[in-house]
């Protein structure tokens, strides 16, 4: 199984979350916001300056910086 990070998804592409790196408060916050293994997440678009990125997860829109998105490993859907 080849996994990539959430940051590598292009606009319109979706993936299934495999894991979140780390167990610090940022990881916990990401998970609370719905980024948990098994969920489908779609990249919606990026900010005009290329960062942060907008995603759709559990039915709402979430913005993450690329450095945070890199902690989420996904499998391309």
């Amino acid at each position, binding site marked *: 199984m080849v996994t990539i990070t959430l940051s590598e998804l292009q606009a319109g592409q979706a993936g299934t979350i495999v894991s979140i790196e780390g167990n610090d408060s940022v990881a916990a916050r990401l998970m609370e916001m719905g980024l948990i293994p098994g969920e489908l997440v779609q990249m919606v678009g990026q900010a005009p300056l290329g960062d942060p990125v907008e995603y759709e997860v559990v039915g709402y829109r979430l913005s993450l*910086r690329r450095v945070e998105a890199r902690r989420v490993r996904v499998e391309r859907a």
Partner: protein
Amino acid sequence: MPTVALIGNPNTGKSSLFNALCGGQARVGNYPGVTVEHKTGRMQLGPPPLKIVELVDLPGTYSLSARSADEAVSVEVLSGEMPGLTRPDAVIVILDATNLERNLYLLSQVLELQLPTLVALNMWDRLGSEGIAIDPKMLSESLGVPVVCTSASKMIGIADLKLALSDLLSGAAKPLRSRESLACGAFPESFHRQVDELQRFLESQGCPLLRFQAERLLIDDPQAHSYRVIPRGLAAWVTQRVGQSRQELADQGVLIPLFETRARYAWIKQRVAGAIQRSPMDRKNSGSDQFDRWLTHRWFGLLFFILLMFLIFQSITWIASWPMDGINLACGWLADQVASMMAPGPLRSLLVDGVLGGIGSVLVFLPQIAILFFFIAVLEDCGYMSRAAFMMDKFMSVIGMSGKSFLPLMSSFACAIPGIMATRTIENRRDRMVTLLIAPLMSCSARWPVYVLMVSAFVPNRSYLSGWVGLQGAVLFGIMCVGALVSIPVAWLLKRFVFPGDPSTFIMELSSYKWPSLRVVIMRVWERVLSFIARAGSLIFITSVLVWAAAYFPGDHGPADKAQAELEAQESMNNPDTTKLESLREQVHRYNAQLISQSYLGRAGDWIEPIVRPLGWDGKIGIAVLASFPAREVIVATLGTIYSLGSDQDQHSQGLVDQLRAATGPDGKAVYSLATACSIMVFFALCAQCVSTLVTIRRETNSWRWPIFSFVYMTTLAYIGAWIAYSFMSRW
């Protein structure tokens, strides 16, 4: 009187619901020891006999994990540990129906606190357009709590909610919810055993905790606020014990904190199954997404953003100038009325210069604050604010801040006070503190009069590039940028040494666009305006009176008052003798100048002279700077008084400009030069000479520590900056 808590995620319409329930009658304060706003109101439940309930509005949070002060306060209030507050008799959880799953995360935690709970399913009216259908009855059965559908901004479902709350409060005490029915029922057995042990031990040590709190100790970071409930003597033991438990759990394959979020979302999926239907609608074609594509577009999005900011700040200065002139006129008229009724003397001076001057200097900021908050409320309510932060984040991350700091800093170019108040939208405490501390460095409109006076007096009126670039304009622009440029290293240093911690994150919900509700917007502006008048007003007023006293006493005002009375008598004549009038005016100004140099403030000026000498200033400038402590623009009037031209000098008066140019020291050399002017401008660009700002910082941080810190660091910067400017320019 029963107490009911209101809790929910940010952007769920919680403040609209609060206002709908309490009719805008809110009392706002701070929780003891933390900078979290404490808002309570009273609501009437049902027909007579009237039942009054106290409603406590808890901060908007996504979770009760106690990682932020907001979350910790919510847990403490709900568990009855907040000093001065009894444990609520019930809790209303407001959920955004269009984003049910993520909102249920908070509910799954609140249920474990075992309080009578009621769900307000808000934004009910928007489900149709989002292609979502929810069966509230089924949801209520599967969650085990009453569910009421509401649309708070349209006042829909409020009566039903009150009815349900009344039933909940008068109902018989319900048995505790069983662990199996809650999300924590899915936590691993080994975790529960560790929690049991911890809870038993703490209880034996006289520190009984709720089950939920004991669980949080094991799940959250040791730095988290959940440790606040542990008595100091036990803290070391608990930290060690928790570390050991976590290690044991990790060895058994229990992943902290993943197992919690996983169990909760699994519970949510199971509970909403069947109760919610999403029609397979292509979100790309929904109105909100169409909008979003343009508003966050690479070029158009940025262009629109810049245009919008430009329009907002133009209208703040343009629209506000009318009511500001009005307020100035009204205060002036009132001062004239008082002056015409009283003979010159200390009481009149106190009323006119101290009280009316003080109140006027506060009220004059009000239009700017109201207009800025109007725009902020509209942008927040329609959903654009989160996009603005989204677009500006990259830019702000260069200095270690996040996009959420952009608007407060931008607002501070108009006035730091609304800017500092706007930092409330930043949830991360460190980001908020840094933003709040650098906001006063942005070049606010009160610095303008000082710059204009200095530039028109001492910068040659030359132009370059065949008249397109004027030197005076270029210098004005440059001095406007000084503060913003200096704020970059300051922000970096503050982040690094004063508020160290993890780099800021930008995990933010982008709520969908909607039409702003006028009721909500007006309510928010009204709240801010009231709190500004009530609290900042009183302290600014006291300081103004103190500065007045320092400039008035001691000194024999008899001859000056007599001359003033003669002058007024002469002025009120139908046919005044112009030469006499002129000489009387001259006399009054001379007396005033003499009195101010004898006053405590004037003596402070003599004392301060050696300190300000390296900046190229003399004692008179020193006094003027001291006297402008309440507000920067006061320096123009004070310089006017000192240079015997009367205190109603304004910066365009050629008289003051000429006086400044002609002023000579005891050695016969000119006091002012281009270098001195630059030194004064740089000083004012960086100093914290604004009581209103300092008082606002005090109010927003709930401590005197930060205004004092601001004043000290900004004054130091201003002194060093002015010294550099003077040394550089006098050599050049």
